[in-house]
């Protein structure tokens, strides 16, 4: 066991973990941040995606000890003062989900995409999200939601 300082959604959190624990398990079980989901444990489905220093990261295959002191953003940190992030709003408005279990991971990946590329076309969006599985098959709607978010934020070119 070692004491580890994590910067999660702008807040410093101190946890006791052994070096082998995944970031996903620490977020979910130690910090009760259950928005990031377990889907496969091998980085194949994207349900556990969080941002580490702004980069989309599969938290299920990332050791918690490897991200000490780095900035971690999870789905719980997106809403600001009761206001949804434009991507969250777009997912809700475009009905870009069915069971919703993949949604937080998709949204976090899309947040990183729009920061990197504010006006992505549908092929860019699909390419960026290729590592995510939506078993309900709402892929088209997810692309439309991200596109809609790009348009409603300043980056979008219409």
């Amino acid at each position, binding site marked *: 066991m070692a004491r580890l300082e994590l910067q999660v959604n702008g807040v410093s959190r101190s946890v006791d973990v*052994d070096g*082998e*624990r995944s970031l996903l*398990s620490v977020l*979910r*079980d130690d910090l*009760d*941040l*259950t*928005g*990031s*989901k*377990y*889907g*496969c*444990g*091998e980085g*194949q*489905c994207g*349900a556990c995606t969080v941002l580490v220093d702004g980069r989309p990261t599969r938290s299920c295959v990332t050791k918690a000890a490897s991200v000490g002191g780095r900035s971690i953003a*999870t*789905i*719980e940190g*997106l*809403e600001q003062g009761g206001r*949804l992030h434009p991507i*969250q*709003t777009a*997912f*809700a*408005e475009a*009905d870009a*989900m*069915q*069971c*919703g*279990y*993949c*949604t*937080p991971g998709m*949204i976090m990946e899309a947040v990183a995409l729009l920061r990197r590329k504010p006006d992505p076309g549908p092929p860019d969006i*699909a*390419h960026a*999200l*290729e590592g*995510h*599985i*939506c*078993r*309900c*098959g*709402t*892929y*088209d*709607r*997810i*692309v439309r939601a991200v596109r809609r978010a790009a348009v409603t934020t300043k980056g979008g070119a219409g």
Partner: protein
Amino acid sequence: MVLEPERYELAAGPAYRFEVDRREFVKLLGGGLVVLVARAAPAQESGTRGGAAGSPPREIGAWLHVAADGTVTVYTGKVEFGQDIRTSLTQAVADELRAPLGTIRLVMGDTDLTPFDQGTFGSRTTPFMAAQLRQAAAEAREALLDLAAARWSVDRAALDAREGEIVHAAGGRALGFGQLTQGQALVRTVAADPSPTPAARWTVAGRSIPKVGAREIVTGRHRYTSDLTRPGLWHGKVLRPPAIGATLSALDTGGVDAKRVSVVHDGDFVGVSAPTEAEAALAVGALKAQWKTSPQPSDAQIFEYLRNAPLEAREGDGRGAGAAASGSAERARAAAPIRLEQSYTVAYIAHAPLEPRAALAEWQDGRLTVWTGTQRPFGVRAELAEAFRLPEEKVRVIVPDTGAGYGGKHTGEAAIEAARLARAAGHPVKLVWTREEEFAWAYFRPAGVIDVKSGARADGTLTSWEFHNYNSGAAGIRTPYDVPNQTVQFHPARSPLRQGSYRALAATANHFARETHMDEIARAAGVDPLETRRRNLKDVRVRAVLDAAAERFGWTRARTPGHGHGLAAGTEKGSYLATCAEVQVEPGGAVRVRRLVTAFECGAVVNPEHLRNQIEGAMVQGLGGALFEAVRFADGLVTTDRFSRYRVPRFSDVPELDVVLVDRKDLPSAGAGETPLVCVAPAIGNAIFDATGIRLRALPLVPSGLPRPEPAL
């Protein structure tokens, strides 16, 4: 091995009749107005309980409560796992009650709070549960009108219900539903009436209302079963056998710290629980078990095996379902100028819901509470009661909105395992199956073999139809085409893998075989596949969707070089559909589906956007099973046990999807979450033939590209 060919068809009736003490409701719900829906237990649902002399048994299907603060709470045993019924049922209630959507809350799938329900499957929510909730809501509205009329001493006819209020326009006054029920303790019962409100009179239903609960999902706040916690929670892990059918011969627990970890060894069940998931995983890894295995068939021999492994006949095995016998298929075939005989196969496939099986179990004073993502909360309650020899009233099953099921979560494996571990540990225990466990130890869509023999006149008109399905099931087995001489039969088999329901059941396999075969008849007759179908179809609803899909697709359009067009049509669970596919075959043999058009008719449409969402999703799921999904197994072990080994559709696989909704406001709504899947595979297969002349008769069609054409001699 448990055989579950068509669970909903062989479901037994509820274990007991719900006897309602009206005072209990008022006590439970705290005054206000309660409406109960009493329905006659339908013959197919009542099982052995029916048949008593006198009136048919009645049971409570749903109830609804209007509280003094105006909140409307609806109680239904149905569960939400992505079909958006929380939304569509809310719409139905809002419509009848004339209450704002935001005042309505659904309590779903809680065996202590909601009435008995067989389960959420078979596309039954919309035709049955929505109708019952409409009646409850309509009765509540009438009761509120009565209350207002009495309070104001006016004629009921002068009053209107709208937007959560009873309005007396002439008197210029209005009272909220909540105000009217203050101080009341009213219970009304309404008999379920099978005739639903005509869609022409809907105001809230029939429109695209955004998903109820979407905000909780996009913020990550919604708690699925796997996200729940309880004070003193421990985490569980189960030791899985090395192969199907293995039995435990010895277990050494010496490597486990008994002070930190609880170990359960009960028959062939071995599991551990510990304060953290990491400790539980470590402990289960430290167990030394010896297993005895027995020879098991592998996927390479599966179809031969199924054809030769008939299941002994027993009640409820579904073999009679869908059977047809008319005329003499054999004689008519002998006289037919076109005679075809082909076999079709479908592989086992996995549901792979993104949330694996999960359960949290807690024992308190001899009572067991289990939170779990199941499609059959009452069925799982019965499983738990049986496993722990408890009366059902000592078991409560609660189903949080779940991370999908697709027919794969009818059973209570994780619930029983968590409960067993929790009882031993003296702590609440949460057990979340790993992805590997979900792939290897859940149940599968049945594999199957289908033999078809047909006879047709030279113009493609069918005269003889013989259709035998081995193992996959009877759903959708009947042909919608008019054939005078028919033999149709489902033959249950002993499946080496555990199998059960899968979205659309065997309708996918049966539509694949039938619609591929129809294409083969069309080619043999030299008649266009669309025209061949039309010549054999009297059913106007199938014809309507066939024409709608062909028109939107541009069936008569010239093909792009290297592309092929295919179509398929059918009907299942009261819905009608046709799908057209355009595929592109690349020079190396890779197949890309470029476009899918589905025309769908399920009576009156309740929520057009959510219906489109279901149809699109079903097309994508159908695409996986059509092209590449297959469970591989050898020596009793599933080898496709993770997403890196079992391919499911991803963004890059999704073709252009086009949905044509045929809205029949004059017809009752049928369920629609399953059926749009069934024509995808044959449409794609027929399109591949159109492009290449290669006829594929096995699902998945192209797990590793097209086979190389045999060189011409």
